[in-house]
């Protein structure tokens, strides 16, 4: 087996590890670090369930080789809340009932958190376009859009320069 060594940060914790070069970031998070909040849906970059932040940019963990994360900083769904205090997007998803089975939810949340800092317009159509990389097979889309709208308005108010 061909192996490589990489160091990166996951939710603020420094990780150094040796692993098979073929390991995706998704498998590394789930199988090596037991961070199973990041989900494996299609494993081909089509569903968005594995969305994480790499250096603050939302990315697909299933199409990212862990070895290419050397020196980078990764945030997963587990790194979002501040202790018991949920992130505004997490709160909004609960309040708006933005899920049924919940499998896509961590990806939806990571995407929405990143989206709040991206230069999208304000309409619901913009939210749908910006969130089109996150599929929800339960079809909770209307509630997800409502939750995203509420959360990003709140974020903009709390951190006008963020």
């Amino acid at each position, binding site marked *: 087996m061909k192996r490589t060594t990489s160091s990166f940060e996951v939710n603020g914790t420094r990780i150094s590890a040796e692993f098979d070069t073929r390991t995706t970031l998704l498998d590394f998070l789930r199988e090596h670090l037991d961070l199973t909040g990041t989900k494996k849906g299609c494993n081909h970059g089509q569903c968005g369930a594995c969305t994480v932040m790499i250096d603050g940019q939302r990315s*697909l963990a299933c199409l990212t*080789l862990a070895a290419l994360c050397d020196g980078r900083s990764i945030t997963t769904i587990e790194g979002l809340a501040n202790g018991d205090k949920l992130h505004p997007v997490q709160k909004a998803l609960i309040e708006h009932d933005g899920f049924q089975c919940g499998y896509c939810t961590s990806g939806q949340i990571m995407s929405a958190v990143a989206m709040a800092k*991206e230069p999208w317009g304000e309409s619901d159509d913009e939210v749908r376009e910006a969130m089109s990389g996150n599929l929800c097979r339960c079809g909770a889309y209307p509630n997800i859009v409502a939750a995203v709208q509420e959360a990003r308005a709140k974020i903009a108010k709390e951190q006008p320069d963020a």
Partner: protein
Amino acid sequence: MREFELVRAASVADAAKSLAANEDAKLIAGGTNLVDLMKEGVETPGTLIDINAISGLRDVTMSDDGGLMIGALASNSAVAWHPDVQEHFPMISQAILAGATTQIRNMASMGGNLLQKNRCFYYPEENARCNKREPGSGCDAIEGINRMCAVLGTSEHCIAANPSDLCLPLRALDAIVHVEGTNGQRAIPIEKLHKLPGDTPYDEVDLRHDEMITAIEVPPSPIARNSHYRKLRDRTSYAFALVSVAAAIGVEDGIISEVRLAVGGVGTVPWRDEEAEAAMVGQPATQEAFSAGAAIIFRETKAYSGNGFKIDLAKRAIVRVLSELSGDAK
């Protein structure tokens, strides 16, 4: 996935040297296309050369004369949201944002976008015949599901459409692709980068094995401020084009002074027909002139069982976009 060695390149020269030393090596930047194809067993490199740490290849700069220089490692997102790109070359920004999703655009590099593989259903399908994946095996798309395939530039060996949105405005604007290999640097006009399938559909781009793309140069084009990218697809977002149009037009006193036009979803390479543009110049900016130009582009097509609809759809899309851009949208 086949096992592979991972090598990290510190410079372009380093990457070129690693490529030259190893026939079985491939570069990896964003990896959005390559990693997926490696999982499918379509791409089986024995070595991956990580080029992400090479410095100086992420800048997007506008020169005093209004041209753009885009580093090959700039992310698709960085270019799409760049204020100069949005203001002076809106169709480049729109084309990028019409492709894939934010997650993928954040990862994908500009150089990689130019080299992305086709999305013909049969290409990654192990049990299907595909002359790109397995030269000489045949083409199952010709008599199969070919809704996403091309009607221009096809051959009896391959009808896959080039899937890049980005390549269309670049082709319309005569972009130049800068590459570097062990023998030095080269500047390739984008029209020469992608090859028609002909008898060798597996031979897709005019790049030597040891060369890597370092930058994309977009020459100044004042009319590009008045440009637009329109993409028609089976769903509103995150789908490849059935048909798309990248167009810029200049109109003076009601007369067409210049047109730049490329059409997507229909060609085996990013499709542009300068004869159509020349025929429109000097004509009144009317739907009749746009329609006549569109007819020239599609004068020699080959439609297959599932994609003949693209010809009319593309012609109408061209007329619509040029009409809107020239204020003649009736």
